[in-house]
């Protein structure tokens, strides 16, 4: 079956929506990476830009919603066309949330950078951030190419993020237990870790939408916990 509609302007409408999702995805990735870089390099100079940059994601999401409503109203899409429009709307909403988390990471990073000396748990945090950035990049690739298998690979990798977060959570609690002077910074640190873990969850929501778009149903299996030990590589 060809993917072309007889009415070619319908194809252009759908391509527009895909492009908007791609732009949103690119911006979300960029914001997230900039926030993590600021924290890792202890550089506050970019933080104001990151915070200000979030409104661009909000505007893009709104633009995509408006376009999606127009396309539904004017084309009466069916089957895969309808799924691709609904997926675009849902993925846009997720990416906008990723932007919010990135902004929040940037705000909290400023506090940590300004107040804190070196902490050993920064390394664990960098590792989680690295994995989640890889997941976000991979799931956006999967969306762009309509590759449900690649999307499900991302879905499976979230297990490792959850495990690393739990471990980091324990480490931070141990730091807090040692002395009250670290408590405030530690709480910011923990929230940043939680934000990153939530971005990981959101990439799995995107993965589910990619799967839905391709197959017309949501993935039903539980995430393969047993696969985790021998699971997919996380060296992205």
């Amino acid at each position, binding site marked *: *079956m*060809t*993917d*072309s*509609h*007889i*009415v070619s302007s*319908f194809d252009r409408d759908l391509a527009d929506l895909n492009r908007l999702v791609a732009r949103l995805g690119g911006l979300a990735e960029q914001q997230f990476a900039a926030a993590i870089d600021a924290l890792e390099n202890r550089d506050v100079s970019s933080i104001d830009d990151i915070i200000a940059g979030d409104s661009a994601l909000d505007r893009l999401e709104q633009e995509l919603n408006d376009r999606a409503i127009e396309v539904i109203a004017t084309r*009466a*899409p*069916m*089957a*895969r*066309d*309808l*799924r691709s429009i609904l997926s675009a709307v849902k993925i846009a909403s997720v990416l906008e949330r990723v932007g919010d988390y990135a902004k929040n990471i940037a705000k909290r990073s400023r506090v940590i950078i300004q107040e804190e000396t070196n902490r050993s748990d920064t390394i664990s945090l960098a590792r989680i951030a690295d994995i989640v950035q890889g997941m976000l990049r991979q799931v956006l690739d999967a969306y762009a190419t309509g590759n449900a298998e690649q999307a499900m690979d991302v879905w499976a990798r979230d297990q490792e993020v959850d495990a690393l977060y739990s471990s980091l959570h324990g480490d931070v609690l141990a730091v807090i237990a040692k002395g009250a002077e670290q408590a405030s910074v530690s709480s910011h640190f923990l929230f940043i870790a939680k934000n990153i873990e939530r971005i990981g969850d959101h990439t799995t929501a995107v993965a589910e939408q990619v799967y839905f778009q391709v197959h*017309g*149903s949501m993935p039903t299996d539980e995430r393969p916990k047993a696969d985790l030990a021998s699971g997919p590589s996380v060296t992205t």
Partner: protein
Amino acid sequence: MTNIENPKVKIKARNMTVHYGDAQALHGIDLDLNANEVTALIGPSGCGKSTFLRCINRMNDVIDGCRVGGSLSIDEQDVYDAAVDVVELRARVGMVFQKPNPFPKSIYDNVAYGPRIHGMAQDRASLDALVERSLKRAGLWQEVKDRLSASGTSLSGGQQQRLCIARAIAVNPDIVLMDEPCSALDPIATAVIEELMEELRRDYTIVIVTHSMQQAARISQRTAYFHLGDLVEHGQTETIFTTPQHQQTEAYISGKIG
């Protein structure tokens, strides 16, 4: 063949073939249609959907050079059996056409025509009651009760189509066939007919041919997709329009080059 779990199959087609001269219009259709459901037949022009519809009340018999093979039964009774009275069959299987075609008679006589020739009313009072009941079921009574002697052709297009539905159901059919019944109607008249179909399926089995995907999606419980004389896919309407199993179906309903 698609026989979806179902309380009662009303119409059962097995290996139905139709030839018009040398041209084969249907290639062995196996299809079960359920009682008290609306089944929509969809597909591009020339796909065989109207041909299949006309097999159900043997309207193809009147076309020169038309040969029908296979079997089609209604309530397990073979429609093509030599013993079947075709006039009686067509009373039992009513039909509504694309273009409203009321007789050039009064509204009353349009509806009374069938009951009269089938001897269904003993006296004027029972005929009056039958006409009123049929017009009510067709959702037209309120609009015409004060002008029953006016000509059927004086009504609007949508009213004429409902008059034709009243005429079809006046002879108490089991099945109503509709061949693009709304294609000549505006959206409001179309909505009135669609609402009526939902009412009518309580009492009748409805088979409709439509070129409007949205109409098929709105009104039917099952949809059958025909292509080049073959039945490609038949299933629950929600499934056909959300996750069709065949690429040809998906291409057709999405407006893609199949």
